[in-house]
């Protein structure tokens, strides 16, 4: 087939030398013409038609970072010259992961595959290595738990590494799941307990991956396990130590809206179900063992040892699954919403803990009450079960998301959880007005659109139009917005504002990517190998991504991806293939494979 290769580069990619790739492409068989179009605007249709006619081209290859942008013009040109529009092949460098080491060879291979008309992922399959049948999972949220259970249930050893004192992650903090309004804990806690009791799962809480060496199929991993100061096996969670502990700090599990002690259990259903000591706030540890120590004396099982030290654990695994999750954008830097200034402006996770039946108010939705702090004498605003319920609540979508200054991407879950909040408020507080300010309602999943319709029918005022100002007028919060559908500017007096805060990669993501050498995208999330074709693989062999750490996604998608990862891992055990760094594949390997497929 007479082929023409057109390089369409929107901007210069520093790691690629387009001229060299073009020279390589010119030497490929059946290639008639190679042209470099360094164009920002689309090339002229007449020019392309001329090229097709003069070279009598039958197949056109568009190569570049985003060649799809140019495809419509070429399709028109091919149609005008009575060619076969199916023979326009895209050689997308960005999609097939040409970055870092070996980028040039990979780009050449992509162009070579496209000229032969073979899908690149079909040709680029890394060779097999002997695989160690143990798996390391980093992150004990719902994604990590799901993957661990799938793999362990197949009879393979799993190491589950979790940074905090319990597994469960963010899902354990949630009250209800959308759109079914199932209780999140009812879905999660049985899975957590199974993980805790599974004979094939070794659970390492309070642990971090420090170093990874070795090659795909046999990674040697060094894990640092921080001291828990409480013996997991003998602790019976009797709560006597917490009663005597004098230290009070903000609870991480309650998103900072309630207080916990220095010796604590994150939540009653925690796995492992044992107490732990926060070394950053314990008086005894901070003073070098001189002060306090009340919990040690009180413990009836004598399982508290405040002199415990960190442990280093060395393990050997064949595959590594990244499930490091996400955290929330710091809203206090988005000034117009008054977070941190007005007491009743809450982030979504704070509201989630407020409305949760196991939360500090027992699930009552109330505004903050004013109390005088006895120690400092200053007035503070805290949640108490006796607080006043709000008369009206504003929910503001897209706080920090889809915003060029903060997160340019959509956080994907905010629309749905805000709708869920509207439902929960309507359900729990009588005669309440709920206002939803949204830009675009992204109800994209199964049953989501119906859920959104249901919320509208329940009497929530769904305002199409964002709000960018929360102000205080006469001790009353005022939210200003534009109701675009009804063509008016609106001002609502509200008692509580809930901000649907955007999501960002969790704090340790950068360090993990450095240790493992996994690429991250411009927003900080882990890069998958191919968004459509292999959304769970990374460019490093035997290292997979699952859940939010790849990109924002909801619980069903996270669970699905976690199971998909488990399938990939288990597949590697049975076939011995699918292991090897994608980026280490040499050009000749891909070429020879492509030729083989081409011959068939």
């Amino acid at each position: 087939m007479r082929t023409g290769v057109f390089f369409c580069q929107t901007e210069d990619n520093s790691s690629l030398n387009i001229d060299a790739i073009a020279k390589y492409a010119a030497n490929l068989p059946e290639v008639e013409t190679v042209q470099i179009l360094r164009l920002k605007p689309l090339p002229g249709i007449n020019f392309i038609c001329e090229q097709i006619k003069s070279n009598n081209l039958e197949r056109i290859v568009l190569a570049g970072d985003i060649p799809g942008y140019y495809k419509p013009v070429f399709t028109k040109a091919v149609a005008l010259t009575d060619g076969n529009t199916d023979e326009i092949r895209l050689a997308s460098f960005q999609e097939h992961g040409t970055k870092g080491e070996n980028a040039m060879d990979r780009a050449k291979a992509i162009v070579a595959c496209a000229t032969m008309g073979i899908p690149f992922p079909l040709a680029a399959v890394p060779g097999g290595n002997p695989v160690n049948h143990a798996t390391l999972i980093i992150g004990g949220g719902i994604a990590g738990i799901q993957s661990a259970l799938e793999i362990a249930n197949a009879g393979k050893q799993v190491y589950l590494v979790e940074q905090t004192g319990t597994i469960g992650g963010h899902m354990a903090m949630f009250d209800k799941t959308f759109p079914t309004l199932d209780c999140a804990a009812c879905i999660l806690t049985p899975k957590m307990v199974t993980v805790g009791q599974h004979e094939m799962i070794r659970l390492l809480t309070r642990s971090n991956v420090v170093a990874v060496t070795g090659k795909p199929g046999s990674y040697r991993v060094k894990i640092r396990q921080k001291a828990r100061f409480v013996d997991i096996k003998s602790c019976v969670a009797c709560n006597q130590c917490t009663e005597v502990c004098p230290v009070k700090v903000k609870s991480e599990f309650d998103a900072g809206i309630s207080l916990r002690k220095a010796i604590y259990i994150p939540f009653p259903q925690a796995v492992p179900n044992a107490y732990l000591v926060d070394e950053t706030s314990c008086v005894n540890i901070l003073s070098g063992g001189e002060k306090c120590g009340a919990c040690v004396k009180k413990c009836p099982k004598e399982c508290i040892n405040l002199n415990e030290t960190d442990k280093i654990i060395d393990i050997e695994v064949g595959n590594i699954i990244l499930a490091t999750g996400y955290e929330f954008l710091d809203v206090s830097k988005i000034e117009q919403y008054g977070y941190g200034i007005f007491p009743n402006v809450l982030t979504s996770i704070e509201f989630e803990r407020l409305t949760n039946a196991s939360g500090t108010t027992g699930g009552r939705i109330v505004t903050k009450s004013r109390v005088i702090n006895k120690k400092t004498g200053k007035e503070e605003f805290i949640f108490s079960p006796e607080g006043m319920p709000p008369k009206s609540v504003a929910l503001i979508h897209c706080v920090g998301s889809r915003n060029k200054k903060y997160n340019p991407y959509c956080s994907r879950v905010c629309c749905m959880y805000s709708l869920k909040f509207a439902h929960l408020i309507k359900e729990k507080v009588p005669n309440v007005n709920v206002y939803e300010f949204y830009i675009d309602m992204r109800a994209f999943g199964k049953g989501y659109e119906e859920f959104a319709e249901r919320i509208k029918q329940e009497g929530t005022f769904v305002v199409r139009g964002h709000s960018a100002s929360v102000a205080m007028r006469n001790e009353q919060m005022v939210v200003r917005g534009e109701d675009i559908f009804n063509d008016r500017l609106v001002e609502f007096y509200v008692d509580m504002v809930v901000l649907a805060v955007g999501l960002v990669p969790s704090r340790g993501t950068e360090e993990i990517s450095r240790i493992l050498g996994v690429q991250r995208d411009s927003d900080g999330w882990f890069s998958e190998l191919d968004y459509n074709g292999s959304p769970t693989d990374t460019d490093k062999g035997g290292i997979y991504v699952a859940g939010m750490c790849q990109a924002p996604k909801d619980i069903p998608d996270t669970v699905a991806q976690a199971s998909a990862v488990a399938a990939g891992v288990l597949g590697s055990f049975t076939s011995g293939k699918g292991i090897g760094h994608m980026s280490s594949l040499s050009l000749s390997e891909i070429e020879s494979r492509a030729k083989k497929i081409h011959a068939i």
Partner: protein
Amino acid sequence: MAIRVNPTFIDELDRFGAEDVQLCYQCGDCSTVCPHADDVYKFPRKSMRSLQMGLEQKIETSLEPWLCYYCGQCSTQCPREADPGETMMSLRRWLISRYDFTGIARKFFKSRRTEVMTIFTVALLTGVFLIYYGFSGGSLSIYDGEGAFLPSQFIHKFDLTIGSILLIFLLANAFHMWYLIMVKGTSFYVPWWSYIKQFYQLPWHFFTQKRYSECEKKQEHPFFMPWFIHLGLMLGYVTMLVLVMVFIEQLQSGPDIRWSVHIFGYLATIGLVTGTVYFIRNRLKKNYVQYKKSHGTDWVFVVLLSIIVLTGIIQHIFHRTGLNELANITYVIHLMSVVPWLLRMPFSKWAHLIYRPLAMYFAEIRRDALARQEKMIQSVPVLIK
């Protein structure tokens, strides 16, 4: 009323400075933070939308661009960095060119070269004419009185001629504006007494620029700075215009200073100098959103104005110190820059001097009429069957 869509309208506006309108995703943040947006006049989002949809006919009859004073809050807040503030500014430029029936303003806004060339040509013609006139009847060494190079009586007539040309164009454009907004763009009945009732709006907004001061409340500027300086510049300019048009003979006479006239001249000069220095400095430093993007015509505006002010001051000093030759030469240069400036006024940004107060006036009339309309609709019982 059927509205014809102009799909290339947004590309045309690109030449007037609105480059990022396509980025807007209609969140309404800009309208929310705008201190001037109210229930009748909602902007900038609606204007952005009309622009995206190519509703040229709707925009040419809209008042919203004139109600915006570009404090820049919308542009700071915009999550898409679509720059609604600059879009409103560009719409004002486009409207100036739309009100102008000759099509000259449009050429000026679209091509800086045409504008600069025209200014140079007019300046050159003025210079040649003045020098010819000066040498034909007078001497370079005499500034005023008998045998002067440019006698004040002649300058008075010259000024009045230029002024009447300016006035004809301005009035015609203002009439066109009235036609577009109040006749073509207002589909409901406007009672004539509204025109009389709201007439006070015209001088009120012309001399105080009240809305501009409201705009700055939330800004970081101390003492309402831009409003104060803008007001000073405008008042200085108008005072100078009146002095030149009416009192030029008293102004030009004798080396000694006539305080009864000159005091106004000095005050006006202070306003003009502070204004030009402040705005040139801001446009160069780009500290505030509203000065970040400068259209070509903005630069022509401030540069020409500063030349006029500078030559005027120098000429005044030369004349009062008795250096008549130098005074005459600078006078010619001064007039060479003044004439194109004045002739350019109806076709340039400076026309907003007239359009803004007119727009406030029309806005109030339209608001009155709209309220009356709504009252009428409410009072008429609706027959269902």
